[in-house]
């Protein structure tokens, strides 16, 4: 992977069912978790997992899920992914299951903060700015 430019659609998407198997394979090669990026694309979430090899190259996995689909957590394989998965769950409302430590959407936000702030269109029932 280049230092900067990544062309769109350069790598294929994998299905959420095959995710755990893929990550397990990578973990057995000594790959570690770097970060994950969630994008709100129309009716779907696009989630990019970024890993790092011992040679310091980066590996990428892309997953697309619909907004009410469940996504298995990879924190059972790579524990340090747990903070980022909690963040995505909190910011986008992605349904991530089997989290090693579940902060219940209260890791960065509080009960009064605007919930799922990074969604492009927020659900109508939630008011911005919370309530006194």
């Amino acid at each position, binding site marked *: 992977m280049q230092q900067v430019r990544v062309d769109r659609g350069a790598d294929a998407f994998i299905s959420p069912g095959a995710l755990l198997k893929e990550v397990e394979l990578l973990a057995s090669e000594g790959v570690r978790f770097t970060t994950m*990026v969630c994008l709100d694309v129309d009716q779907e979430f696009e989630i990019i997992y970024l890993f790092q090899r011992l040679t310091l190259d980066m590996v990428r996995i892309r997953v697309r899920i619909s907004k009410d689909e469940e996504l298995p957590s990879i924190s059972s394989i790579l524990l340090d992914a747990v903070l980022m998965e909690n963040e995505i769950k909190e910011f986008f409302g992605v349904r991530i299951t089997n989290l090693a430590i579940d902060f219940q959407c209260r890791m960065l936000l509080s009960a009064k903060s605007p919930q799922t702030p990074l969604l492009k269109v927020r659900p109508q029932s939630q008011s911005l700015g919370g309530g006194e």
Partner: protein
Amino acid sequence: MARVTFPFGPQHPVLPEAIQLQLTCEDERVVEVLPVIGYMHRGIEKAAEANLFPNNIFLCERICGICSFIHALCYCELMEGMMDVEVPPRAKHLRVVWSELSRIHSHMLWLGLLADSFGFESLFMQCWRAREIILDTLEMTTGQRVIQSSCVIGGVRRDINEDQEPDVRRKMDAFRKEINAIYPVFAKDYTVKSRTVGKGILPKEQAWSLGTVGPTLRGSGWDYDARTLGYAVYDDLGFEPIVEDGCDSYARMMVRLHEVVQSLELVIQALDRMPKGDLAVTVKTFPEGEGLIRVEQPRGELVEYARGNGTAYLERLKIRTPTFSNIPALLVMLPGCELADVPVITMSIDPCIACTER
């Protein structure tokens, strides 16, 4: 034995920032730790989508006031990469000078706070006095002390001109004298060694698998530094990552201490090699497509991802800050230590909460 759980923070004299550690103790020994974060969360990633993309430089700079120049540099390099902008060589050298200066000031700040966390007041004061020389240099050349605002997309806004350059070199010589006086204290002093050697062990394998970055990783024997990827002009400068094998707080401290000396040499090298020429190029396009960048902050590797759609607003900006991936290491380092060592071990990863929570 009775277990007691009590909060460390969010307002605590050792940590200038708000983080809470819920420590479960048996007598004086910590058995469990749960970091409670979120006291500094602002929502910068969302605001970055609502701002014009050049304005995000100033927002990204204020993710963290200590390594602010490097945050701005990272964002600018990312945007330049996405828009295929070639930065003039003089601007690249100036970026190296300022980012190394801010690395020195961050490490000196940290060394002082570490000394403060085990009660070595006079060393704390001496580190901070030495740090003011660097801050003066930054103010003289960029115009502000801690938040420099001198990096823009396409180059830099300020210059180190001919009358200033001898002054910068003089200040660097003055700083070298100071660091030469401080170095043996950290390296050899009985008080420092007894509080750091063997405290907060992070084994080599775990340091990799827990995803730690920066001095925390290099203190456990991995020679990984994002500067070796060669952004700005780091590939032209003689640069070798600094590695220590101790795996404890002392090793992490020595990595930072050596990095101060190394950064000083890098500043001088960049000043020597600085070519003449333009400071910035005008940028007329908008970012499109995806981009990913890794740069080295004082605290470790900073990863930024952006997606643009050809308009003046970004679709998404994701910032993975170094402390975010260093926090899991605390879960390994803290259990088993004594309560009195908690501040020292927490400080040893150089936690920057403002970075973590954005």
